[in-house]
């Protein structure tokens, strides 16, 4: 990747799609993107966790963004992917998404901060990015994770 072109106040995001909405995740969190594979169900766990998968000998829990954001369920397609996020202390978590689009670079100017309202899913957003004519909701992964941990 040509990082020289990226100026200091800009960041790269992985662009994802849920239905017609676009979401972005800070690329520094991404460990891996894998195709859909059999997920072993875990009984009596948080409802948005689909279960666990085997990623080269490592067990990784996978959650559904749709379930977490209370979006309507949808059949998985060929475009469905599991995004493996690497977090503090080498802990990993998988996120099932409808589709992974592309990597975009956004500068601070492209991002409009939003005041978080804890009652809805917007609490998990850091802001909304503008890329060409598309609006991208930027996910606040650290809030999302601490939310899961504290549950």
């Amino acid at each position, binding site marked *: 990747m040509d990082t020289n072109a990226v100026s200091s106040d800009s960041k790269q995001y992985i662009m994802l799609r849920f239905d017609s909405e676009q979401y972005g995740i800070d690329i520094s969190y991404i460990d891996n993107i894998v195709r859909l594979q059999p997920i*072993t169900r*875990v*009984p009596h*766990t948080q409802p948005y*966790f689909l279960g666990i998968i085997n990623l080269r*000998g490592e*067990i990784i*829990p996978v*959650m559904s963004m749709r379930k977490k954001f209370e979006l309507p369920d949808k059949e998985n397609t060929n475009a469905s992917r599991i995004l493996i996020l690497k977090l503090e202390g080498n802990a990993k978590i998988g996120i099932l998404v409808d589709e992974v689009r592309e990597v975009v670079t956004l500068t601070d100017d492209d991002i409009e901060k939003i005041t978080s309202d804890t009652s809805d899913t917007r609490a998990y957003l850091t802001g909304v990015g503008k890329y060409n004519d598309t609006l991208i909701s930027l996910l606040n992964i650290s809030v999302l994770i601490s939310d899961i*941990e504290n549950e």
Partner: protein
Amino acid sequence: MDLSQYLEIFIDETKEHIQTLNDQVLILEAEPDNIDTVNEIFRAAHSLKGMAGTMGFKRMQRLTHDMENVFSEIRNGKLNVNADMIDIVFKCLDAIEGYLANIIETSDEGTEDNEEVIALLNAALEQGNGDTAKEAESAKPEAEKENKSDAPSDRRKYLSIPIADFEKNAMTEAKAGGLHVYATTVYIQETCLLKAARAFLVFKGLENKGEIIKSVPSAQDIEDEKFEFDFSMFIISDKPLEDIKKAIENVSEIEEVLIEEYNIPEQVEETSKPKEAEADKPEAKDNKPAKADDKKAHAKTGNKPVVNRSVRVDIEKLDDLMNLVSELIIAKNGLVSVTGAVAAQEQTFNEQIEYLERITTNLHESVMKVRMVPIESVVNRFPRMIRDLSKKLNKEMELIMTGEDTELDRTVIDEIGDPLMHMLRNAADHGLESTIDRLKLGKPQVGTIRLDAYQDGNNVTIEVSDDGAGVDVEKIKRKAIEKGTLTEEQAEYMSEKEAIDLLFQPAFSTAEKISDVSGRGVGLDVVKNKIEGLGGDVEVVTKLGEGTTFIVRLPLTLAIIQALMVDVSGEKYALPLNSIVTVEEILPEDIKYVHTKEVINLRGTVIPLVRLNEVLDIEPLSEEEDGLDDDTIIVVIVKKGDRQAGLVIDKLLGQQEIVIKPLGKFIRVPKMISGATILGNGEVALIIDSNTLV
């Protein structure tokens, strides 16, 4: 010099020495005349002092030095062992442990001088010297120097080396001929790996400067590394002192060179006497064959691991190795499942697979063995603890331990110490009656606490028992009612076992008085949590008036286990083999109901049934889907202690060696799932902890 890198080794070795001292002092208390023990203690104290000195822990060094002095006197028969002295020594050991605790936490020994303990030690020493004043008199000049804790004179070891007549003559002649006679003690850095080589270089360097007329230990011993970190020499030379000193200092890894012009002692008697006080110096043997065993003892301190041949290995390295083996097993399972699928015709291919299987099994076993540590390393501090408790509680008691050589995985060993300690304290404080009560009851005056460990299949069982009063079930119930955790009615119908289980609830203590030792209500619940966290369980067997036994069962290892793979409504699960009793096929009409709960009567035992698909929250498959013969039901009978339960499953998939993996940090895992494992085809299966279902 930066010593931080040696700190870990220092801590480890100090722990070892303190343990040795504790053990040996206990023996000494029982057998005050055991000279081997005294020697052992002296050596450990001496090493401790040296190590503390090297690391720059001055206070610790001073304390150990004074302790060493006391044992030096005992060893020379100038001081007798008595109960007071043992107490002082234990106090001293506690103080040293205090230093160590500080060092572990802050890398510094702290500022506690422990003057009191030092004063006690010196008082004991004085008393000894007073008793044997006459002997001390004759040993005067050098012996006195030895007793003063002033470091420089102590380090000039050459002062206390006896000089034989012929050597003295040679020196006198040399002096008369205008030559210099130098005496020197050379200290090699304790971190030096090839001390014999360094010493050799010193000798080599001095060869063309003068003549070494005597060295202690002897040149041969030095060559064989039979010395600690210092050696002394007498040199006749025409070169000035500085020249000689430089020649020695030129050799690297030399810590300190003490050298001076030697004053030849006038009288032979005067030098031969202090030899007694300095009996630990190996040269005593050169002149006196009677002291031969001292020399052996010295050699032992030099190359210690004669008995205990061990290598310290970082646990992380072992973990890496273990992970590799785990990978290998997964890969092997993969191969096995491939062959099953293709039904490979090639005979040789199958043989290779079997070969691989044998290797991985062996490799697994040996790696496990490397990780296994005898529980001795945990339990050896308990005799001392019981002794102290005995004094503190003013109860006579003894601890009998068996099976200290039983081995457990390192990870388990590290965690098991505290729970065991809690149980022993509990036995000493609550379990045993006071000595007076015991006599009244016609029981032996001395209470017995036992710690028995043994291997039992894939488990290790540790029993902590006492012959005390036993648990009064009624008293527990009353207490629980008082505390409001139990209603009168509940208490009425409560079984003995359930009542005893109350003991393991947080903040439950039946001790009437809250003592220093126990009774604060923390303990047994912590014990239970810890042991269950290790995949084990605790059980209490008690008989009123006769005693209580805590039975702790622990898994040998936490990493790889044998499991039975089962199918429950189309999902695969692993059941650890060690909790399975049998597998039974039953007919639907065999199921009976007790309190609306399903049970079966298996050869006279009523066993409750657990429908795994229900507890695991799985939709049962419709009849067409499962394609099973519904006339029979497969039940896996599992046990926990002496209780059993029957787990209803759909299909048996066979036995397999599985590698336990954690489920990751974020997902909430129900108690009945103890982990996950990766099957040969890459699929993930959950491992069921059947203990939670019994």
